[in-house]
């Protein structure tokens, strides 16, 4: 996209949206996240990254397996599960920090949606174990203006790892 004044306003607005989302996730306010940031049409995907040599990689599109491939109903199940008394995996909760950077709108879709890329570094620690996990990823989002604000319609999380270095993906990237 050409860099116009309008674009930089859009960039700032989307960055605000993604920063606010990160805060809600780090505060474990998953119901708020679902209700304030996510569209009912959401498609949230995280493909398995397979190491291929360049010759074999050229022909490969998205791999046929995902770590996460959610629609609204599954995200809702994840969130409702956290709300029960028995979701041990996040009780006590992980300490997470979503560090979002390199936010840039990369295109508009005819339907009024905007495609926005960002980088994510996610820090996670659990309990008093003297160790932590770091996940690095590119995020390719599609967002839509929806009444009171932006909503996430699509998120593709491209992990920078083939073997995922965190014990489970209860965390939302």
């Amino acid at each position: 996209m050409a860099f116009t004044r309008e674009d930089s306003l859009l960039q700032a607005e989307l960055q605000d949206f993604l920063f606010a989302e990160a805060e809600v996730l780090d505060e474990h306010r998953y119901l708020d996240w679902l209700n304030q940031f996510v569209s009912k049409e959401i498609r949230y995907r995280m493909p398995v990254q397979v190491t291929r040599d360049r010759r074999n990689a050229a022909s490969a599109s998205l791999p046929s397996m995902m770590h996460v491939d959610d629609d609204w109903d599954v995200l809702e199940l994840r969130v409702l599960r956290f709300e029960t008394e028995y979701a041990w995996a996040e009780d006590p909760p992980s300490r997470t920090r979503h560090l979002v950077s390199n936010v840039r709108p990369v295109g508009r879709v005819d339907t009024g949606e905007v495609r926005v890329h960002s980088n994510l570094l996610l820090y996670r620690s659990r309990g008093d174990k003297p160790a932590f996990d770091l996940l690095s990823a590119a995020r390719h989002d599609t967002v839509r203006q929806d009444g009171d604000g932006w909503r996430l319609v699509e998120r593709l999380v491209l992990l920078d790892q083939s073997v995922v270095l965190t014990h489970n993906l209860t965390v939302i990237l």
Partner: protein
Amino acid sequence: MADVEALEQRLSDGLTRLDRDWTVPAEIIASPEFHELERTRLWGRSWVFLAHESEIPCPGDYVVRYIGDSQFIVTRDETGTFRANFNSCRHRGMMLCRAEQGNTSHYRCPYHGWTYNNRGDLVGVPASKDAYGGKLRKQDWGLLPAPQLDHYRGLIFGCLDSETEPLCDFLGDMRFYLDLILDRSDAGMRVAGPPQRWVVDANWKLGADNFVGDSYHLLMTHRSLMDLGFFPRDSKFAMYGEQIATDRGHGLGLISAPPGTELPPYLGLPEEIVTQLRRRLLPEQAEMLRRLSIIHGNVFPNLTVGDFLLPKDLRSAPTSFAALRLWRPLAADRVEVWSWCLIERDAPEEFAQATYETYVRTFGSGGVIEHDDIENWRSQTRILGGDFAARQHLNYQMGKGVLDQDKNWPGPGEAYNLEYAEAASRKFYQHWMRLLAAPENPMRVGTSAAATGAEV
């Protein structure tokens, strides 16, 4: 590091107590000493799962896989034969394949250019005449093959001991039950895609133990999903079924449903597959499949197999998916988990898609069910890695004095007509302790009786 004889003695005591008290020494779970001993006495002896044949459907296709900490290139050569060659150039030991998968007729070493065909023969040495004066006998310097390689119903296994009993004997009675998942259709199964791989700070045995014979944990570990109505609200639903323990540490559970509960027959498989399975399987096998909701099992040591009839969210009807799970140890307290979804090749596209969606949303790295299991295993590992754990013996007494073997069960192995049994877990740890306690490989041809002898 304790000397090996001291470890053997502790294992021998552990076997005595398992036999007498039905307990398992807590120290064997996460101690670095036993992890070290596993390297030679378990991974150096046992058949280990490498790949599903559908991952390498065409000549030249390869995947890089592990037995213990050693990498093998598992490939289908130009004649269609499976090969597993050590991923290491014979010249300086350089890693040949640095991708996880691909297709190639030749592997060229990036260091000096020694080149091998996908049978493993050395076929090219740069500047051979100048460097070796024509004296290098290429036929002597092929890649080192895995000492044994074999396959069963699409599962490719390797073994580092050339004298370990053949794969079919090693699988033994477990084959009957593997067929319930792997031999239902003429075309067989395919992987839905590459494996999900992730690292968990837990010992590998806890995953195997959980899947081989622990349906009891569902009522508490997965309570959140019962409260939401994802699992049946009867918290003891996983009690209803049959648990089977077989020789050599394999085992499984076949969960049906609480009395009076209707299930879609044959795991809700599409009609095309049901017709085939009723023709292919024995009548008693087909009858087992007819009234099942979950198959969970483990092929000793570290290949978990299963088939699960589950909804993919709180609104959908259940669909079944088959899965393979490999627990590859990285350390006493770290495991690399590999998880594959299997789909019937002949299944209609709509069913295949529903199967994939159910798998990815409930199971594997991102699935909602397993998150809590993994939290258990990492917490167990952390606590059992401490010195004081050596004073503890874990209770595997479920069924002791109250549950007799099911003599009417129409399948092989030691069967119990109640899934709250722990029999398969006891057999798993018994075989593991026997293997680690034995200076010589007890699974060698002619000596396997020693490994399987007395019942727990």
